[in-house]
């Protein structure tokens, strides 16, 4: 009987670790991209380097925490002329602001497999509150979280000076993500 106590205690710990523990992101199957409209032309770019910390129990989303750190230098559209501009002071100003971040402040469930993550998005020295809708699909031990939200680039001074003209580059930028997760408890 005495032996059972530590066993039970450790079982409880394991259970706690699985339900509230951090989930791992599978980088090769995950993607953070953005769509900017230039004279009406949608152009998709990607952030190639970023890290995420996700701790979510789908049964208790209120206790969940999500945070991202994104290397602004890793942003690109895949076209050399455009990619050379992205790190410059008028755009991400990578030299002064090498990282952008998102830190959740509240997570709530909005439906089966659907969540709303409110948080603070910090880019180029400006911080804005955003609400990000997330849809989670599960297949066995693997989960995929997808979603999209729209930000206004000028709120973050992305595209200054001659580039502030929204008739050339639209103010609205759609941010999209697909995250492959392991270790997420069943929905």
């Amino acid at each position, binding site marked *: 009987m005495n032996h059972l106590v530590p066993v039970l205690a450790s079982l409880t710990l394991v259970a706690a670790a699985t339900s509230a523990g951090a989930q791992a992101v599978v980088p090769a199957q995950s993607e953070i991209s953005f769509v900017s409209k*230039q*004279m*009406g*032309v*949608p*152009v*998709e770019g990607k952030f190639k380097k970023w890290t995420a910390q996700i701790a979510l129990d789908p049964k208790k989303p209120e206790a969940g925490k999500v945070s991202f750190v994104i290397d602004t230098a890793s942003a690109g*559209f*895949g*076209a050399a*002329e*455009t990619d*050379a*501009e992205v790190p410059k002071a008028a755009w991400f100003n990578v030299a002064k602001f090498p990282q952008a971040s998102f830190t959740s402040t509240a997570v709530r469930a909005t439906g089966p497999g659907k969540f709303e993550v409110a948080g603070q998005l910090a880019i180029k020295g400006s911080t804005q509150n955003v609400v990000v809708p997330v849809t989670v699909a599960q297949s066995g031990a693997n989960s995929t979280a997808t979603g999209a939200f729209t930000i206004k680039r000028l709120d973050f001074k992305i595209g200054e000076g*001659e*580039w502030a*003209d929204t008739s*050339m*580059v639209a103010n609205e930028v759609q941010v999209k993500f697909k995250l492959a997760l392991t270790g997420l408890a069943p929905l």
Partner: protein
Amino acid sequence: MPTRYSTPAIALHWLLALLIIGSLGIGIYMTGLSMSPTRLKLYNWHKWAGVTILLLSAARLLWRLTHQPPADPPMPAWQAQAAHAAHWLLYALFFAVPLVGWAYSSAAGFPIVWFGVLPLPDFVSPDKALAEAIKPWHGRLAYLLAAVVVLHVAAALKHQFVDRDGLLLRMLPQRGA
């Protein structure tokens, strides 16, 4: 046989002349610019003009095939043959240059939105290697078009000022009309 081109043929000829020479000029100028809103604007204008040229050329070709052009003034047979060959080469390039440009834009991942309003379908799927392979051909064909246009203009001027055979009048709007 008519003595001059029909009014729609004349209108399309001069409208396309303006669009094509304008697009060639913008095309040569814009590629040398560093990234700026001006460059972005010119690239889009160039693409809009290219799609417009494509559509107007289709209309023009249909008109040309269904309407009798005026007779050639007297000239050596080789000159008439060369002129007709140059005309059909011009028509081929009116389609080839914009189509290859459109394919390049699609392959490079920049879909064309005509006049910033009408999104056009992607000609080929985005593919960086393919874009690089297509890119020089748009330029080569455009320079070939420019060369044939120069030849075409030079021949017209020769007829006007050397032969003085009134050939150019066939393509000018009728005076007092």
